[in-house]
C-alpha cells in the first residue's frame, strides 16, 4: 500500500550511485525485500517507471528477491525460517517450543544494479 514513498527512496539511492559511477543508463536494479513487507512488485515497477522518467534510470527493470522470515526460539535459541501465514503458530523445529522473536524478514535493500 505504501509503494510510492518506498519507490522514491529506491530512485534516490539509484541516482546517487549512478552519478558517482558516471552511469549513462541503468538497466537493471536488484532489490532484496523481506517477506514481511506487503509491497507488490508490480506496483513498485509501475511507480518506478513513472518517477524515473527523464533520468538515467528511465526504463530500468526492477528485480525483487524476497528474503525469508527468520524467527529465533526463546527457549533453545535456534533460528528458523517460517512462512508469513504460519508465524503466529510458530513452533521451533529444534525443541518444539512455541513462538519466538523476529530475527529478519523486514529487509528493504538495493543490492546492486547493472548499468552502462
Amino acid at each position, binding site marked *: 500500500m505504501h509503494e510510492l514513498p518506498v519507490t522514491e527512496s*529506491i530512485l534516490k539511492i539509484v541516482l546517487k550511485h549512478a552519478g558517482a559511477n558516471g552511469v549513462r543508463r541503468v538497466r537493471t536494479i536488484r532489490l532484496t525485500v523481506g517477506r514481511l513487507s506487503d509491497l507488490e512488485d508490480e506496483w513498485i515497477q509501475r511507480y518506478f517507471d513513472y518517477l524515473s522518467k527523464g533520468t538515467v534510470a528511465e526504463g530500468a527493470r526492477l528485480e525483487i528477491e524476497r528474503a525469508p522470515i527468520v524467527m529465533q526460539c526463546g527457549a533453545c535459541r535456534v533460528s528458523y525460517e517460517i512462512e508469513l501465514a504460519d508465524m503466529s503458530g510458530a513452533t521451533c523445529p529444534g525443541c518444539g517450543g512455541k*513462538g519466538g522473536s523476529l530475527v529478519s524478514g523486514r529487509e528493504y535493500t538495493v543490492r546492486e544494479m547493472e548499468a552502462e
Partner: protein
Amino acid sequence: MSEKVRLIEVKEEILSDNNRLAGALRERLGSAGTMLLNLMSSPGSGKTSLILRTIEGLGGSLRIGVIEADIDSTVDAEKVASRGIPAVQLRTGGFCHLDVAMVARGLEALPADRLDLVIIENVGNLVCPAEFDTGAHRNAMILSVPEGDDKPLKYPLMFSLCDLLVINKIDYLSMSDFDTAALRERVLALNPRIEILEASCRTGAGIDGWIHWLRREASSFKA
C-alpha cells in the same frame, strides 16, 4: 549489447534515511525527558477514545500532547483539543502511514520540550504503519473485540514489534465468540516480550492498567 554493461554494488537500505532520522529524533526527545508513543490500530478500534480516557486518567499528572494523523479530516484533533490538551492534526493526504518527517512536522506545532509524553495516533491501518519507524520510544497497539481474535494471523508484523497490546471493547465479549486465551497465545508466539492489557474505553474497565503502564514507561525518561 552495444554498450558495456557494468555491475555496480549498492548495498544500501531503502529506508535508511527514515531510520536514521527516527533514531535522531528518539535520542533528542529522550534526552529532553519526553517520551514519544506511537499508537496504532485498525480504524474504529478506539484510538481516539483511549486518548480521551488517557487525558482523564492522568488527570494532569503527566503533561501530554497528541499528534493525530488522518487521511483527510480534523475531527480527532478537535476532540482532543477540546479537553485542553495540545493537539495537532496531520493530514496524510491519502498516505497510509506516518513517517518520521511527518511526525517531526507535527512536533514542531507542539510545545514538545515542555511535555512528558507525546502520543502519535497513527493512521488507522494494521499493515503500513508497522513498516515505518516514526521515531517513537514505544509502540502500542489496540485490537478491539469486534475485529476478531484471528488478526495476529493476518497482520503478524504489527503484533511482533509492539511493546504493548490493549484489547479494547471487552464489554462486547459476552456478545462475541472472541477467544481471549487464543489471542494471547497467538500474540505471544509472535512477540514474547509484549505486554497485554484488557480494557473498555466505554465502561472504563482496565483503563487504570493502561495509565499505570504509561506512567511507568514515561518515568524511565526522567533523570
